């Protein structure tokens, strides 16, 4: 005690006792716990990325890989009016659409009659690029299956009618979505005028997911081209700004402006 400096107080001594107690009775090893937590974190991230990658790839392997005649190749858009003679300088109207996307239904309700007229009279080359944004954000595969089934309807020459039956139905039901099952697709095809042997072929096409690979390719290609949201309408590659072009009349005007 005599050797201790005079300043040593009871609290200092208590602190030393505490420190000694801690040194001997450390409790859990911080380095060990830190290492374990870091390892778990690394494994979780790596495993999660691998699982995500594998599940995406395995779903990509399912279904068929047929290319619709009106598209020509994987990733290319589906031309809805291939048989119409285009007027000179008519622009290309690219519509990026997801069957499940509510905003697409709203845009459809406003612009579709005009779009149909423009396409029929050859004022635009109408090209659909089907996307599966909602599948990606909310899960499920109805965006994919609906778009794929529309390509089956195109095989029967009824794409436009089929597309209208489904989207008009949603718009008339105030945005309420159907169940997107095979029965719904089949009933819609029948309403669109596909009957008999053609309807059987349609059902078969839907069952085997013949165009699933093609729809994945348009989703992928449009994302690479920077289109990650739906609906996106482009006139000769220029995105139509719906905040200014918000009526059918203004849309016709935009088409005229894009006509060369």
């Amino acid at each position, binding site marked *: 005690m005599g050797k201790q400096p005079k300043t040593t107080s009871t609290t200092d001594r208590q602190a030393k006792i505490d420190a000694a107690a*801690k040194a001997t009775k*450390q*409790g*859990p090893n*911080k380095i060990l*716990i*830190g290492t374990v*937590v870091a390892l778990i*974190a690394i494994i*979780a*991230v790596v495993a*999660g*990325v691998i699982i*995500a*990658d594998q*599940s*995406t790839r395995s779903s990509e392997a399912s279904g068929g890989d047929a290319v619709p005649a009106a598209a020509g190749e994987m990733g290319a858009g589906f031309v809805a009016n291939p048989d119409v003679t285009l007027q000179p300088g008519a622009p290309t109207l690219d519509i990026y659409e997801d069957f499940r996307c509510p905003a697409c239904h709203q845009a459809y309700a406003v612009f579709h009659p005009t779009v149909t007229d423009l396409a029929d009279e050859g004022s635009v080359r109408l090209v659909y690029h089907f996307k599966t*944004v909602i*599948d*990606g*954000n*909310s*899960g499920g595969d109805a965006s994919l299956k609906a778009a794929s089934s529309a390509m089956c309807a195109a095989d029967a020459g009824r794409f436009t009618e089929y597309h209208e039956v489904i989207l008009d139905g949603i718009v008339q039901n105030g945005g309420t979505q159907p169940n997107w099952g095979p029965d719904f697709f089949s009933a819609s095809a029948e309403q669109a005028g596909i009957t008999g042997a053609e309807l059987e072929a349609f059902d078969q096409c839907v069952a085997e997911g013949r165009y699933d690979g093609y729809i994945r390719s348009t989703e992928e290609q449009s*994302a*690479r081209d*920077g*289109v*990650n*949201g*739906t609906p*996106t309408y482009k006139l000769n590659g220029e995105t139509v*700004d*719906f*905040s200014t072009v918000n009526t059918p009349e203004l849309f016709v005007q935009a088409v005229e402006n894009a006509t060369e």
Partner: protein
Amino acid sequence: MTETLTPSTETPTLGRTRILDLVGLVARLVLGGVLLYAGATKVLTPVGSARAVQAYQIFPFEVAQYIGYALPIVEIILGVLLILGLFTRTAAILGTVLMVLFIVGIASAWARGLTIDCGCFGGGGEVAPGETQYPRRIAEDVAFALCGLWLIVRPRSLLSLDRHLLRRP
């Protein structure tokens, strides 16, 4: 003498410490909670998460895809660590770095005239020009980054595993 002084000198300090510890707890729960929520909304939809990152057009397409797969998991891990108060400072540093990167990404998208949803809590991709919410998203991320900054400077907080498991002060 000391015994009469003890209450008058220590109680205010103790009270102040407890308040600062409480602020630490709130900072942990806010930053950790938002990271956990953000991760949870995206982790089961990796394709959507990948598309949200791709929409920023900052990284090459494939790189953005893998960032999109990994990000929700990283957010969940950091969120859980912060909520538990385990390795608070390390988790806060990483969480703050994430928030700063988000702010840079959003500001960059804004500056380049992209009209995208931030994809913070699911969603993502292009939206109408009036629906981008860039200022609001940046303001939120600044607030979360400040929570992180507090914890980097003063990781001590109430009800933390750092204290109760690792016996840190």
